[in-house]
């Protein structure tokens, strides 16, 4: 360390290594990514946004929405759900007794309490999930044992974790979900809820617009600021404009006026509706629910 050159060299090598590893490496691996296919389907993923939603992403960027909202679902791992699809001629009590009779099987010993608890107050509604376990063998054994004529049980691969349990999405966010985002805005603070699947969770554009204009009108106690500057309050004509917001009492402007969303507000709402990360992918698999609804 006697001369400037050796400091320069040491710093250069260290800094170069980081740049090589965390910039060049990911660029090489990820920036050539193309759309993938949804698991067990021919559908492409992700889908390109509509023009309005693409513009809306710029409204999202310009107003720094990502300062308070993430677009990333986290997941702790996987579990296997054993779900009863049909009951045949069994009555719920009979089925319960039948399952209890299986508890002598040594393979099921570790899960008897969980099964008994989930069936205790069951009134016979279907489909009924009666075991969630991380153990593939136990789940397989259980399905095999309860499958008697008329009864059909299914295995479902599900993602687990608090984000999933909150209903923010059926699986973790994967790199592929962000392919068409420009800029990519995963966010870093959840002052507000995650938005990775807001298009699935709140698919009504009028709800979205009302929420942007007066958050408390649709979510009581919301701490989100109102974005009134994205709307125009103007004198209503003889007949109310078709695009005017239908607001609750206490949030509507004075009589004779109506709230019209500007182009920006409509674009932002279109972008929010385009946010859906709910297709099973090879790197983030899950078994969709029977109806195909997540």
């Amino acid at each position, binding site marked *: 360390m006697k001369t400037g050159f050796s400091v320069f060299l040491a710093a250069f090598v260290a800094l170069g290594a980081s740049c090589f590893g965390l910039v060049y490496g990911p660029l090489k691996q990820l920036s050539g990514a193309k759309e993938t296919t949804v698991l067990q389907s021919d559908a492409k993923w992700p889908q390109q946004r509509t023009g309005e939603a693409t513009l809306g992403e710029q409204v999202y960027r310009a107003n*720094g929405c990502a300062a308070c909202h993430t677009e990333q679902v986290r997941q702790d791992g996987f579990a296997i759900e054993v779900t009863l699809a049909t009951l045949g001629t069994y009555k719920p009590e009979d089925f319960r007794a039948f399952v209890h009779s299986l508890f002598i099987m040594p393979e099921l010993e570790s899960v008897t309490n969980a099964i008994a608890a989930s069936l205790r107050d069951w009134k016979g509604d279907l489909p009924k999930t009666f075991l969630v376990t991380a153990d593939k063998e136990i789940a397989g054994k259980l399905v095999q044992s309860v499958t008697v004529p008329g009864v059909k049980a299914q295995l479902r691969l599900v993602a687990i974790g608090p984000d999933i349990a909150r209903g923010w999405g059926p699986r973790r966010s994967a790199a592929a979900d962000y392919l068409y985002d420009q800029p990519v805005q995963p966010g870093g603070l959840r002052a507000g809820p995650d938005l990775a699947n807001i298009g699935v969770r709140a698919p009504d554009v009028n709800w979205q617009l009302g929420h942007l204009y007066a958050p408390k009108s649709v979510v009581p106690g919301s701490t989100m600021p109102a974005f009134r500057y994205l709307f125009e309050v103007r004198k209503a004509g003889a007949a109310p404009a078709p695009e005017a917001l239908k607001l609750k009492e206490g949030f509507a402007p004075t009589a004779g006026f109506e709230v019209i969303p500007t182009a920006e507000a409509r674009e932002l709402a279109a972008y929010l509706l385009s946010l859906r990360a709910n297709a099973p992918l090879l790197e983030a698999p899950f078994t969709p629910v029977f109806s195909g609804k997540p």
Partner: protein
Amino acid sequence: MNPNGNKSICANEIDASCRVPLLALFGGAALWLVLGLALGLAAVMTFHKPDMFADCAFLTFGRAQAAANDLLLYGFAIPAALGVMLWIFARLSLVPLALPIVPVVAAHLWHLGVLVGTMTILFGGSTGHPWLEYPRAVAVLLFAGFMLVAVSAAATMGFRQNRELYPSHWFLFAALLWFAWSYGTANLFLVCNHPPRGVVQAVIGWWLANNLIFVWLALAGTGIAFYFLPKIAGKPLASSGYALFGFLTLVFFGTWVGIPQSAPVPAWLPTASAFGALLSVIPVIAIALVARKTVCGAKVPCMGGPFCFIKFGVLSFVVSSLLYIGEFCPRYSRVLEFTWFNFGVTQWQLLGFAGMILCGAIYEILPRVMAGELPFPKLAKANFFLCSGGVVLYVIPLLIGGVEQGMKLRDANIPFADASAIALKFLRISTTGQMLILLGTLCLLLNIIVMTLQWKLGLVKTVVTVFKDSLVEGSAHQPLPCDKEAKS
């Protein structure tokens, strides 16, 4: 320090050569610091009264907070650190600042860039990448300004009388190199016409954020602390060996941190970051040991002076870095991610560590380069107590609130609104701290402004006198009196 220096150089002369560039850098930096804090305060008001800025697009939280953060980093921390660096390089080299006009131009370019960048963010032109919100034109301005300062700093370093390097040299030189490299790279990829597609944008963004907030501030702050601590304590730096070890481990490991553990990217990236974070404990401890050994036993009264600022800054560095590193431990990140915790740590690094060290250094340097006393020494002391108290009051509630919020977010049975509400309670306390910091930094701004005005007034007076004298008789130019030998 300069056994074979055959020409004794006057400390006054070195300080005077830094005067104009440093005033330009520090003056703007202090102004941006105050404005950044005020804007941050306005931004956080949204959480106390959500509909306060509902009709005011440019003060909406997402815009104002981004602009405030950038003002603290690009407006204050970097130019102030550059100014201190120039002075340290000149003092260590025992030569007047090389090319003194270059950093003056650079400072104006830089401040112009910050002004345009802030306005752009407030009017909705942010790029959307955290810490890289400034648009392309501003990035070019900042980069050009930085390179100009770096040229002057490197030239001053090259002219040094004593060829041996002091530990501060390593840290500060690496800081010069690394900002240009990382900021340039990130802008080339993200703020260009054809950015790479997909999540790799976020990876580059995280990489840059870590390298600016953690590595760059650590390099600059430690380099500055390692110069001032021994100088004020009146003892040599405790252990060059540890300092070198700390430097090398910091640049080798610290630069790999930054990718969040749950990031939706190939698993090797967060894993590499977790390892980098684990190993980054080493430089933090090494730097802490060197600073502690240097400071311990020094019988220098501190009393809110620069020594206090720098000691507080080093302590902040150690604690905030360890907390930052903890965020990358997979076990803790699950709770801490996406909460106010990260926000608190970043503010601590920016204000508690970099801010305090830089304020201390400015108070130490200003009277020297201006060849006069601070106009309000009491305000300088008040600055210390307000800012140190403010930082604690600002950051600690955010950290505790973040942990609470994280634990509640982990439990899906607790509604999301409850988790947010608990964090808001702590946010209310932290806003008080923010106000204290703002008050403290106003003292800094006032000192700098009054000092600059006094100096400008003096200049006018001198010009008038010289003009009068030249009318009377052709008086010769008097060299500056040299009251003390330059010492590093």
